[in-house]
């Protein structure tokens, strides 16, 4: 096995991210599964006009990108916290008309990403029928139920967080860290991963690998003190 996807720094991992890129960010709420170190490297790199795909448009991680005004558009499910105070950088910029938002129900977001990664052209869901989410979307009655058509959502890059990686890029996750990450690994063209631990090829149980190396491009180890 000559494959080695390990890169030595977060800076190197994000080196080819370009202005205007669409990037998916793993993580659901708070720390679990959020690729915080990759996000910091992206902030430091300073690319602009990004479209970010994320559950939330904030938290200690993504706030960095909004604060640095690197985001042009967000595609998110729960973009703002329940409470308005303190107002997140995203919310302030959105209300000022400086950032666009496409709000997507969470299950639809998941399925749109999986479709993009799986070559599916679109799917019919009941989620959103009769709501503002259905506006402008094709409606269809199948059997005795109403559905709307949702289309795939892909990205130039996915930034994800896992627990262990082998050198070829197979991944395992720990607890609720898994969340969006395996789906974004499928949907992203170039997939960057930060992990707690990098192991030799063959050290992970084939039955317990959650994300196959087939989706993964680069792996970076999180320095111990920050893990």
């Amino acid at each position, binding site marked *: 096995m000559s494959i080695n996807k390990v890169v030595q720094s977060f800076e190197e991992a994000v080196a080819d991210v370009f202005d205007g890129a669409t990037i998916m960010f793993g993580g659901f709420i708070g720390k679990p599964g959020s690729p915080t170190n990759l996000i910091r490297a992206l902030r430091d790199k300073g690319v602009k006009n990004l479209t970010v795909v994320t559950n939330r448009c904030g938290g200690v991680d993504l706030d960095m990108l909004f604060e640095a005004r690197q985001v042009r558009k967000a595609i998110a499910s729960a973009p703002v916290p329940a409470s308005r105070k303190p107002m997140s950088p995203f919310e302030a910029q959105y209300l000022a008309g400086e950032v666009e938002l496409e709000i997507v129900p*969470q299950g*639809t977001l998941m399925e749109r990403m999986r479709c993009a990664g799986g070559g599916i052209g679109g799917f019919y869901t009941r989620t959103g029928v*009769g709501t503002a989410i259905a506006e402008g979307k094709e409606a269809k009655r199948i059997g005795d139920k109403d559905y709307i058509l949702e289309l795939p959502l892909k990205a130039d890059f996915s930034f994800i967080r896992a627990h262990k990686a082998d050198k070829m890029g197979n991944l395992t996750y720990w607890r609720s860290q898994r969340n969006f990450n395996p789906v974004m690994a499928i949907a992203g063209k170039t997939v960057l991963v930060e992990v707690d631990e990098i192991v030799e090829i063959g050290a992970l149980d084939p039955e317990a690998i959650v994300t196959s190396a087939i989706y993964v491009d680069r792996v970076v180890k999180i320095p111990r003190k920050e893990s």
Partner: protein
Amino acid sequence: MRLTDEQIAKRIAQEFPDNSFVNLGIGLPTLTSNYIPAGRTVIFQSENGLLGYGPRAKPGEEDSQLVNSGGEFVTLLPGAAIVDQAEAFVMLRGGHIAIGVLGALEVSEQGDVANWMVPERGVGRIGGAMDVATGVEKLFIAMSHTTKDGKPKIVKNCSYPITASKVVHTIFTDMAVIEVTPQGLLLKEVAPGLTPVEVQASTEPKLIIAKDLKEIEL
């Protein structure tokens, strides 16, 4: 009297069938997990892919990578399993979850629920609410019966943007338990000391009074 949040939660928990899978929204719905009747097994599923999460972690024992859908540091019970978020929604959208419990801004006579946006704020948050509302076998709503200003939250038609249409099974409030039926809203239980007239006065649509109307048991 009006029920406390804990009392509403306790009432709802009595409806969870033994050996069932249940999804709880953040806030009041989450409280129900503290009141599972003795001898009954209820497995909580959360949108981020946990099945079988348990009580909150004790201070100092939190796992930084283990939260429920409300972002609370929780524990895992024996038999817990973890799936990715896409599969968590296969479960939610595919009807595998027996009961979902959501909070709400408003519920309509037809069973519409509104809980994702207050237009004055200018931006909302959907999260898993539309999927939960549309996909679970039975959708329960847990909320205060009226707004802080005393206005009815159970209305003829929702004024807020709706989360899903014609999906609510039963509404549990601090005043009553009301089932959404094809004939209209059926008042089944009232808080101790309240009369149907008082409940009706805080409710916009006309209520049907159940023949076996009773007080909520606490």
